[in-house]
């Protein structure tokens, strides 16, 4: 009995410590976001208050009014959606075909090939930005969506391929064979069986690719100098005049551009975690 009690209280302490740690971790992880959110809803005076307030004293929607009445910002969100969306679609289309081939086919130099793909992802973008600028200018695509999408695809594709290879390798081979015997061509087997089945993997990859492209700043800042193509990452720092920086508006904009990502993850996380392949084979 005594042993049971002591082990019971041991469990209690363990779970208290467990949740305390989780709370601490969440606080650290979410602090920057919470701080930015606080900045977006307080007055300009409070932003500059010293010492800074932990909890907001004043509440105001001015910053949000500023950004939403700004045509530049609205246009920038549309641009971001277009650039990140197109990048994601291209990456998934090319990446899934390439990953499928790598996962399923036997060919020479497969692993050096995979390493090479990965090496591209590690290539520092800054190193190629000047030559790219020259080439894009010559090709006449500077200051267009293409000048943002092309480098985004190049740098996101290796990630896409690697993630998808891992997912495709997990799928039971029998399903493909079953589809082929059922009368499907290799491509039909791929689109009708493999892709739907790897949906959790494809969604995960899509989200990561989208986030990558959504957050991209360097290429956008270099190749896009017209508001008709500039994405939000470039526009947010421009909430400033020569004399002042509108930190409140920047914070509000940061919150607004984060929301689509959060929504995306929330929508798809159920698909990501649900084991879609359950029931395909015994087990």
């Amino acid at each position, binding site marked *: 009995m005594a042993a049971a009690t002591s082990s019971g209280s041991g469990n209690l302490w363990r779970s208290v410590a467990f949740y305390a740690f989780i709370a601490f971790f969440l606080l650290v992880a979410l602090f920057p976001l919470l701080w930015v959110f606080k900045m977006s809803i307080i007055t300009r005076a409070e932003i500059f208050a010293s010492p800074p307030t932990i909890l907001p004293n004043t509440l105001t929607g001015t910053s949000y009014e500023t950004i939403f009445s700004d045509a530049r910002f609205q246009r920038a969100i549309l641009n971001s959606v277009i650039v990140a969306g197109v990048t994601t679609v291209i990456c998934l289309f090319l990446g899934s075909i390439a990953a499928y081939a790598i996962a399923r086919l036997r060919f020479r130099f497969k692993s050096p090939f995979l390493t090479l793909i990965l090496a591209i992802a590690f290539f520092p973008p800054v190193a190629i930005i000047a030559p790219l600028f020259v080439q894009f200018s010559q090709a006449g695509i500077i200051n267009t969506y293409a000048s943002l999408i092309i480098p985004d695809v190049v740098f996101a594709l290796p990630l896409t391929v690697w993630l998808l290879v891992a997912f495709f390798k997990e799928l039971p081979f029998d399903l493909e064979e*079953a589809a*082929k015997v059922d009368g499907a061509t290799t491509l039909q087997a791929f689109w009708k069986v493999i892709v739907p089945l790897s949906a959790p993997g494809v969604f995960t990859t899509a989200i990561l690719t989208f986030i990558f492209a959504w957050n991209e700043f360097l290429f956008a800042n270099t190749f896009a100098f017209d508001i008709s193509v500039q994405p939000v990452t470039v526009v947010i720092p421009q909430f400033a005049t020569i004399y002042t920086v509108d930190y409140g508006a920047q914070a509000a904009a940061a919150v607004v551009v984060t929301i689509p990502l959060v929504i995306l993850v929330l929508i798809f996380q159920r698909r990501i975690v649900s084991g879609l392949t359950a029931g395909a084979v015994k087990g």
Partner: protein
Amino acid sequence: MAEITFEDVKKVYGEDVVAIQDMNLDIPDGEFVVFVGPSGCGKSTALRMVAGLEDITDGKLFIGDEVVNDVPPRERDIAMVFQNYALYPHMNVRENMAFALKLRKVDSDEIDRRVNDAAKILGLENFLNRKPVALSGGQRQRVALGRAIVRDPKAFLMDEPLSNLDAKLRVQMRTEIAKLHNRIGVTTIYVTHDQTEAMTMADRIVLLKDGIVQQIAPPQEMYEYPNNVFVAGFIGSPAMNFVKGHLEKDNGNIVAAFGEARVPLSREKLENVDLDPYINNDVVVGIRPENIEDAEVVENPEGTTPITVEPQVIESMGNEKYVYFELSQAEKAHMESLAEEEAEVGGEDDDAGELLVARVSPETVAREGKEVRLLIDSSKVHLFDPETEEAILQ
């Protein structure tokens, strides 16, 4: 529906790993053929070559009159049931069954009609809208069968379809598959490692070992007239007993002698067989456990050979008993071709490997450690050449 013909079909992996050695087989339209053999014997490879999932290294494979060596699976018009069912998990039962028909652009009324018919045959009417994950093992197995029968294909290929089911369900599905075949009569190739499935379901059995066809025969014929030691040992459970023996002439009779036993060979078996080279020479004597009976329960001991043994273990099956015994002065023959099998069941080193087994009536008086008289049915004795391991009697 169509016939399937193997003409010197060969499969080699890489440079020199031979999976199938010059296989020749004619499967007439509507026959149920079972490929059976120990794991790694090439039975699945042979099946997958028919499906088109495996290249054919050499020889010709016909489905109907057409050589299909280079025809992709989707154009062969065959249906396959996989060991792990391979149901499409993102589709419900109806969609799973309709998938092949949709790919063939069959019109949707026809698809509905066929899927509903198949569902009725298989008792799946109430599950058509479920996903595979919500089905039991037996139901999944039925969906896999349903996916095959809606197609009305030239042939069914089944790759160990029952091995994932529990023992009771396996027996039940075995009967259902047999019933299904009787009903629709499509040429079927069925792969299994289980000799019971082969015996119960097949019109003809093809027994393979190391990529070489050992024998092709209807089940009863394969059981009664095995070509060689391997076939004799593989078909039948418990497996045939093999003992080292000696062939002698005795008053015009030919007698197989082992230990104290002297089994006279029945004359019918000796027709068309030249036994001269074996007289006074070693042979391997094969006796099926069911051909040894307790002397007390045999009504008509004519044509039998008595042996006296001391049972070491007796296992009761309810409807029969297995009596394990050592035969004094006789040596159990360890055949090379069966060595792997023995190793698999772990019988090589322990005593059980040295024991012979009799399958006797439950009324037997045999007790462990107490001498008992058993009778061997002389007409059912098999003889094998100790070198080639081929059957001597026909």
